[in-house]
């Protein structure tokens, strides 16, 4: 099990950084494989923006003396990672190099749920008691509008298209919901994080999210999902083996020489 940091700012920063980093890492595996060339280009911009957001958080951690941003991103073992289970899941069967059988319905459902959750958190972080977190949130929120519009467009259109598309989206959404138990969780550090007024409480954010996505779920005639208690809580360093596989790949080059300049 992962260590809990004294400073709740550190704890929250790791959750935010690891979320955006793993989400963008999964996005980067999709590059070149999207259903449509134009979409491949658009999707990659979102992935780059998101990795940029992760970098903002890792740099804040670097500033707090936690280590170099690159090292925080690349070589922390799974047990030290604080991302939600949802973002560590692979894009589908197979490895991205040889035989990816990626699921676009899953990409759209995961991205829509993740990005709407991110929006709710970012909005709350804008009034964080921590100045640097609040400033980061203001910056990141500038790019979120596009991400939301992009994923909402795909999410709604595919749900409302053919029967096959709706079935695929329904299945994908179920899979996403099953993994979202820790999406709004702050793990064992929850009370410290909210007591320090870094961000509003899990329940407040979750309720706000439900209200926020309601109109969209109405247009697709699906009830707004509720998230169960997480089987594993990523915020406490509880992860699937899929995360360690991802870490091994992302750090393959970096880990060959930690002291080298790349």
């Amino acid at each position, binding site marked *: 099990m992962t260590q809990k940091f004294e400073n709740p700012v550190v704890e929250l920063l790791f959750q935010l950084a690891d979320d955006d980093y793993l989400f963008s890492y999964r996005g980067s595996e999709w590059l070149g494989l999207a259903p*449509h*060339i134009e*979409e491949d280009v658009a999707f*990659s911009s979102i992935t780059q923006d998101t990795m940029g957001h992760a970098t903002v958080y890792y740099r804040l951690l670097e500033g707090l003396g936690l280590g170099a941003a690159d090292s925080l991103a690349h070589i922390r073992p799974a047990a030290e990672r604080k991302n939600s289970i949802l973002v560590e899941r692979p894009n589908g069967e197979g490895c991205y190099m040889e035989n990816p059988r990626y699921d676009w319905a899953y990409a759209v459902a995961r991205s829509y749920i993740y990005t709407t959750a991110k929006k709710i958190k970012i909005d709350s972080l804008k009034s964080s008691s921590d100045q640097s977190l609040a400033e980061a949130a203001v910056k990141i929120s500038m790019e979120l509008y*596009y991400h939301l519009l*992009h994923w909402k467009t795909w999410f709604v*259109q595919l749900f409302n298209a053919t029967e096959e598309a709706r079935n695929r989206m329904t299945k994908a959404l179920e899979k996403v919901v099953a993994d979202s138990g820790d999406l709004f969780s702050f793990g064992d550090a929850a009370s410290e994080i909210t007591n320090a007024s870094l961000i509003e409480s899990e329940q407040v954010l979750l309720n706000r999210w439900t209200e926020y996505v309601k109109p969209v779920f109405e247009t697709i005639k699906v009830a707004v999902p509720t998230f169960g208690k997480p089987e594993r809580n990523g915020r406490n360093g509880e992860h699937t083996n899929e995360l360690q596989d991802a870490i091994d790949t992302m750090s393959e080059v970096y880990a060959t020489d930690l002291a080298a300049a790349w």
Partner: protein
Amino acid sequence: MGNESFYQEFEVFSRRTKTSPFQHQFSLLAPNEDIAMVMAQENFMRREPVADIWVVKRDHIRGLNSEERQIVERLDNKDYRLTKGYGYLRKKWRQYEQGMFDEKEILSWAGGQKK
């Protein structure tokens, strides 16, 4: 079959700043205008500022056809439409010890008048 209609042609226009005109960027394929819109900026304007975007279905554009393109031809005898046809005024104003209100001078008034 269905792919016939997934690949619809859209022309993308954008303006760089709020006061600049819309300029044609390029064309893209998308199944409908909402998807076309979320593709537009990242496909053609990844590295430049954008203030606004239009996507237009290509079928809705009436362009010149190959033969009609000849309408752009014209003689170079229209100095009277241009400041070039009035350059002699500079000399005239000099006789009255006045400067010329040329384009540079007139546009410099955009800074406003003395208050």
